């Protein structure tokens, strides 16, 4: 936080903060003891978390020029936000940030003039709202999605765009008003631009969000198709980055499983897709044991996508590369009377499909195999 030598003018900073904190207190001279306390407060890690969050809130409410004039650098602010992120990893602290008045100034940092601060603020927001319906609602009510969409679509810094996308994903997952606002805010165009960028991390995050949107919001499939996203995903399925490949394959699998429209409408270039999958099969076939283990997800996705499109198992299965010896078969859930009401999405769905019986006659092969308790037989 504070650097050695030539540190910030804590006296002026505290004076200004106290004077503007509630508008009634008179500024007082900062004694050496007070200065020592404040510096310790900025660095201490044994403070009461809520008290600490209140101090951070006070700093975030201080205008940028005042901080700058007191010698506080953008790096100091980023370090402070790092600490805040650690505190809000606890869901109770995350929800308390709003009640102590810290959420709005944090969202204000999304518009800060320094890219590093914008990125770090987005990362903190992402931590606050991930799997946290209460804070998701609070951020939506504070109109937090708007600066995130602005940063995601047009920030000059790629890192800031990536972090904004991460925050958007956490904010709108399992949050229908968030999804609707994302659509209205032209989020899909920004997703397309992200897929077309040359940053693998940004591509990966965009694909993960796209998978969610395609699965849980069927109305969005047509939007995605109109924007040409399927073609982009097919292209990315050949990416050098394995995470990007996996995420792209997952998105394509979502589209391929769409039973409400003809496959030809959803995946326009069947020949190209087949070439892509064949290429991946060749790539997987040349992997050594360690690589095969690391790319288990990809193996299963390629096989599932092939089955979905061409109604037959891929050659990976013949080569014994979908499930390796000693490896558990894709995990099957225990019998579940209401399982049909909660279909497993995304990768888990791909992985959990039971393999068809190869030795059965063609007529009985169409029947779904019975669900088994625990993992299926290892091949």
């Amino acid at each position, binding site marked *: 936080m504070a650097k050695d030598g030539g540190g910030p003018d804590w006296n002026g900073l505290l004076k200004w903060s106290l004077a503007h904190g509630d508008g009634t207190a008179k500024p007082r001279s900062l004694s050496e003891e007070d200065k020592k306390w404040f510096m310790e407060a900025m660095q201490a*890690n*044994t*403070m*009461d*978390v*809520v*008290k600490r969050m209140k101090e951070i809130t006070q700093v975030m409410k201080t205008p940028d020029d005042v901080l700058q004039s007191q010698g506080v650098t953008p790096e100091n602010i980023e370090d402070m936000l790092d600490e805040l992120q650690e*505190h809000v*990893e*606890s*869901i*109770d*602290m995350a929800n*308390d940030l709003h*009640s*102590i008045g810290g959420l709005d100034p944090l969202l204000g940092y999304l518009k800060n003039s320094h890219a590093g601060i914008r990125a770090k603020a987005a*990362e903190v927001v*992402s931590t606050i709202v*991930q*799997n*946290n*319906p209460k804070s998701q609602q609070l951020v939506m009510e504070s109109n937090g999605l708007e600066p995130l969409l602005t940063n995601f679509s047009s920030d000059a810094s790629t890192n800031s765009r990536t972090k904004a996308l*991460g925050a958007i*994903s*956490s904010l709108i*997952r*399992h949050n229908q008003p968030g999804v609707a606002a994302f659509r209205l805010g032209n989020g899909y165009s920004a997703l397309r631009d992200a897929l077309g960028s040359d940053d693998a*991390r940004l591509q*990966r*995050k965009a694909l*993960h969000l796209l998978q*969610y949107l395609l699965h849980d919001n069927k109305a969005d499939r047509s939007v995605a198709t109109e924007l040409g996203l399927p073609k982009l995903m097919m292209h990315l399925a050949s990416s050098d980055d394995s*995470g990007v490949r996996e995420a792209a394959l997952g998105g394509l699998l979502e589209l391929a499983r769409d039973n409400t429209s003809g496959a030809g409408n959803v995946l326009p270039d069947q020949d190209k897709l087949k070439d892509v999958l064949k290429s991946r099969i060749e790539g997987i076939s040349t992997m050594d044991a*360690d690589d095969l*283990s*690391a790319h*288990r*997800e990809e193996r299963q996705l390629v096989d599932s996508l092939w089955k979905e499109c061409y109604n037959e198992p891929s050659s990976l299965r013949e080569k014994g590369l979908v499930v390796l010896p000693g490896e558990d078969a894709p*995990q099957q*859930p*225990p019998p*579940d009377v*209401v*399982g049909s009401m*909660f*279909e*497993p*999405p*995304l*990768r*888990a*769905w791909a992985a*959990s499909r039971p393999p068809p019986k190869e030795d059965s006659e063609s007529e009985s092969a169409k029947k779904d195999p019975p669900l088994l308790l625990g993992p299926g037989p290892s091949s």
Partner: protein
Amino acid sequence: MMAETGDQHGPVIGIDLGTACSCVAVWQNGRAEIVTNEHGGRATPSYAAFTDTERLVGDAAKSQASRNPTNTVFATKRLMGRRFSDASVQDGLKLWPFKVVPGRGDKPMVAASYKGKQKLLAAEEVASMLLSKMKAEAEAYIGGPVKNAVVTVPASFDVLQRRATKHACAVAGLDVLGVIHGPAAAAVAFGIHEIAGDKNVLVFDLGGGHTSVSLLAVASGKIAVRATAGDPHLGGEDFNGRMVEHFVAQFKAEHKKDVGRNARAILRLRAACEQAKRTLSSASWAAIELERLHDGADFYSTITRDQFDELNLDLFCKCLDPIKKCLTGAKMDRSSVDDVVFVGGSTRIPRVRRLIQDLFDGKELRKDISSDEAAACGAATMASLGSDDSLVDLFLFDATPHSLGVAAAGGAMAVMIPKNTPIPVMARENTISIQPNHKKGIVISIFEGERPQASENTLLCEIETSGGSQQSKARSEALCVCVLQHRCRRRLDGLCEGQGERA
């Protein structure tokens, strides 16, 4: 246990002292209200910490745990009323980052560094720090002093553990009007005692660190505890742990790096899993995304409810064991249960509820009263009996959580009062032979537990008597009754001086 009546001075609070979190409620404006702390929180982590400059309790203690692990103490409920050599304490030593050493009389003591000096603290002293904070929060909430409390304990707590809990309250400046089962208090919170007619209610409590079940008989506004059972080491945190293990394995497979050795990363992953677990209660899947989790690598994964259930199915089934034991203890079959009350955050897991529903042959269960704060509210409701005339006259009967007995000849455990016997106990007449230790009298050791050898059970107290053997036998019977009615050594000593006197 019958709540004390008589003149009460000032408000009485209900405290739910949980393994993971604690909660306090006060009877106010004709109802039980949960006390909120200075930043609006309603549950306080059951943590205490010691630093070079100060002592921390609750949120403050928990938040710095990752930076000060050896001096941050939690789960003290697992130490209170125990011996260092107890199996449950020995098991805990393998998991706790703080140090526990044997003190006088094999009492487990927590070793912590405070203001640069090494200190030994009893579990009761640590718990009293937490209780003091809750007392202070209640006083701030009410705007006046608080001296009296009703405290909940797990159903599995024995006499020594209850005594230790009372002692911790006394150290914190609280007079304990009653120590009651958390599940029974939870049932009271939801008006079970107002049921018309006779009903059997099963209270299923699945918290962060424990499982407990109580079978209550409700009749004419009175609640009797028919049986209790529980697992003090099984709860929601274990389900979380399975998820963490699952993702650690996945990260290792994908990135070929062992994130398990990165303490900071594990803390982040555990916090993310806790929130994902909540999402899985209402959605069929959840995503976890952690930037630079380990060695600069990002982590993204999804988990479905089915996967979560599969990871934890054996633990879910283990949660059902106390239900079966409870029914057996009460000599009751499943069809006799009229209602099931869910208490504790982990009862929101859909699979857990479904398993219990199946156990009761699909009977419709009460699903609208799951609450993390039920026990504290119920304790406050009961605490209000002596201070608010508007409540009905409520008597809550308790049952012995474990069998009580003495050592017979040869050291065998001679059970005088079996487990799940309602309290107060009517006089029991059992003649047993006791091996004499002294010519002038007999030392009677009273044990609590279910093991066939008396010395393997928990020694509650020893009574030294004098006089003839005939009188000794009579006194031993009386003493066993006294133990349950008065729980006071001094009173026991007084009664021992009587000639053939019985309670």
